[in-house]
């Protein structure tokens, strides 16, 4: 009755063959794996070496610079809460942060060029789209096993699994961002003699940055959502706490791990979301005019200005507001 019961195309066997292939090519995979592993470990050891207080101050300042004062307060409160969760929570969070940051870096290195390529070639975009759909929807457990077969358990496979899951939105949004750039502006750049690479770097990429950063933000969020699954292949950190708590039905430990992941997500999300808004939307003209550098500069300038007597300085301050209404064409 079942027409498929007698047919076996050998897909499962073929996929299983990866094992043999991996065993045969151990020599080439191993050095790459070691290099990646060392890199991840060095990121982690840096994060672990910084004292929590210093780290909180640095991240708060970063948030202030990139995303404004409100976000800085949220980040500061969230990080303090992270430390208060559990005596061991901070160290676990730094381990997870190392894996996530490394994965996101890999995603950017891989995803950004592919996104640019997809923006420039309709054929490539058409070919890559079903692959991205597959990567986002196929259950992680399916590729967990082959990846472990290839590189063994540990941080490196954790990063690979995370990249597979987290890189698609970056590719999609990089392509979208570049395609969305106003074609008349691109035409103007051509009309003034810009070469294709000048058009790319001086016009298309700067205008696509907000969309690309939205892609980076999505990639970070997806990376964080993979940490529990990655912990199944021996990645340490907050995800591992959740996994172990699940095995022991330890609700307390699960909540510590889970909340830790949520807090990390909030911190990273708020900081990166702020980057997508330009400084001008927040009321100043250049990035260094806001946040902590803006504060330091304004204190520095105020010192200079009191010496010069403030007339010129005052004029500069009053002019920039509401130029649109005041600006007129009539002379």
């Amino acid at each position, binding site marked *: 009755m079942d027409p498929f019961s007698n047919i076996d195309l050998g897909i499962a066997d073929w996929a299983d063959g990866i094992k043999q292939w991996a065993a045969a090519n151990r020599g080439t995979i191993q050095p790459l794996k070691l290099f990646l592993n060392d890199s991840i470990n060095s990121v982690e050891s840096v994060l672990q070496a910084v004292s929590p207080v210093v780290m909180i101050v640095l991240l708060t300042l970063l948030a202030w610079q990139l995303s404004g004062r409100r976000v800085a307060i949220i980040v500061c409160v969230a990080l303090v809460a992270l430390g208060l969760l559990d005596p061991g929570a901070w160290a676990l969070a730094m381990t997870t942060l190392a894996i996530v940051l490394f994965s996101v870096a890999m995603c950017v290195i891989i995803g950004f060029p592919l996104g640019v390529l997809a923006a420039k070639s309709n054929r490539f975009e058409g070919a890559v789209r079903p692959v991205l759909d597959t990567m986002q929807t196929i259950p992680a457990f399916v590729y967990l096993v082959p990846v472990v077969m290839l590189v063994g358990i540990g941080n490196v496979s954790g990063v690979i699994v995370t990249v597979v899951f987290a890189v698609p939105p970056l590719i999609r949004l990089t392509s979208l961002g570049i395609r969305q750039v*106003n074609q*008349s*502006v691109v*035409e*103007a*750049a*051509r*009309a*003034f*003699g*810009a*070469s294709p690479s*000048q058009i790319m770097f*001086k*016009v298309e990429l*700067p*205008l696509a940055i907000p969309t690309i950063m939205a892609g980076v933000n999505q990639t970070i969020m997806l990376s964080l959502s993979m940490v529990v699954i990655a912990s199944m292949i021996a990645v340490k950190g907050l995800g591992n706490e959740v996994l172990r708590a699940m095995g022991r039905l330890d609700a307390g430990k699960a909540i510590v791990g889970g909340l830790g992941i949520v807090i990390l997500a909030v911190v990273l999300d708020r900081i990166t979301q702020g980057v997508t808004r330009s400084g*001008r939307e927040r009321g100043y*003209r250049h990035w260094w005019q806001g946040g902590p550098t803006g504060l330091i500069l304004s204190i520095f300038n105020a010192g200079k200005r009191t010496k010069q007597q403030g007339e010129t300085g005052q004029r500069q301050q009053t002019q920039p507001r509401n*130029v*649109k209404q005041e*600006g*007129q*064409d*009539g*002379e």
Partner: protein
Amino acid sequence: MSSEAVRHDAEPVIECRKLWKIFGNDANRAMDAIRSEGFNKEDVLKQFGCVIGVRDVSFSVGEGEIFCVMGLSGSGKSTLIRHLNRLVEPTAGEVWIEGENIGTLSPSGLRELRASRMGMVFQNMALMPHRTVRENVAFSLEVRRHDRKTRLGVADEAIEIVELSGWGDRYPDELSGGMQQRVGLARAIAADPHFLLMDEPFSALDPLIRRQLQDQFLKLAKDMKKTTLFITHDLDEAIRIGDRIAIMREGMLVQVGTPEQIVMEPNDSYVADFVAGISKLHLVTAARIMEPVADYETRNGPLDRSDLLGARADDTLDRLAELSIDTDAPLIIEEDGKHIGVVTKKALIRGIQGRLHDTAGDSA
């Protein structure tokens, strides 16, 4: 305008020779079919799915001339102007700029042409929103890798010329439409190009601002003597600005001539319809409506010239009307102290109506 600057007999610096542009995948086969089998627009669309953008267009522009191409939307004028810097490649025909066939330019030669010899202004401004006014204006110099100090200095000069000094550090979205288009103009002239390509530069602006910018542009064009190809869908604008006007329709140039020629001697009913509503007052001169003194005298007997008011051959109808308010007698047209013609009231009124050929053969 046309009367003071008849420059089109100067050495041609822009020449389009039998230019065709057909859009579509089968453009070359469509072109062959047009040539060998005389396919028309409908045939080409049906057989090849191709659209004809520019159709056998030839014209030349002299140095320093302002050449207006006037046509309604879809007439192919924007496509035509883009052939001059090869933003659009022709399907057939050639474009010669300063004695050079630009179809043969290498990519870098073409970029050099665009960056240093041609400045383009766009209908939708097309300023770069992430750059300040000054950085926008300096773009063509930046592309050619001039150092920052030089290019920003040059940009500031261009910004001053369009009377936007002090706005250099602003971003385009902080400026009104008219100011943005002045930035567009500054960007076009920053590299001191030989040619300006103006693609409906003032169409998106409201009438008052448009008029101001037209005046500013005319003044600028006079000072800088840039050879200009100016695209517009507004005949009034074409007449105000152009030394010569080409009327474009369905990809073809249906008439090329001075504003006066276009208005007074339309080639066909299409152009005639266009110019019907145009005021001739400032456009038509006495030279065009006067009749020889002898002709007048054979009809009406000798003219008592002592009482007549005199006018010059290049006085406009407006001026003639002003003069004849206080007299019933015809006006006498003088040149170098000689009486070269007579303008009767009837001729004047017919001239204002734009009906030249009804004037003769009547008594005053």
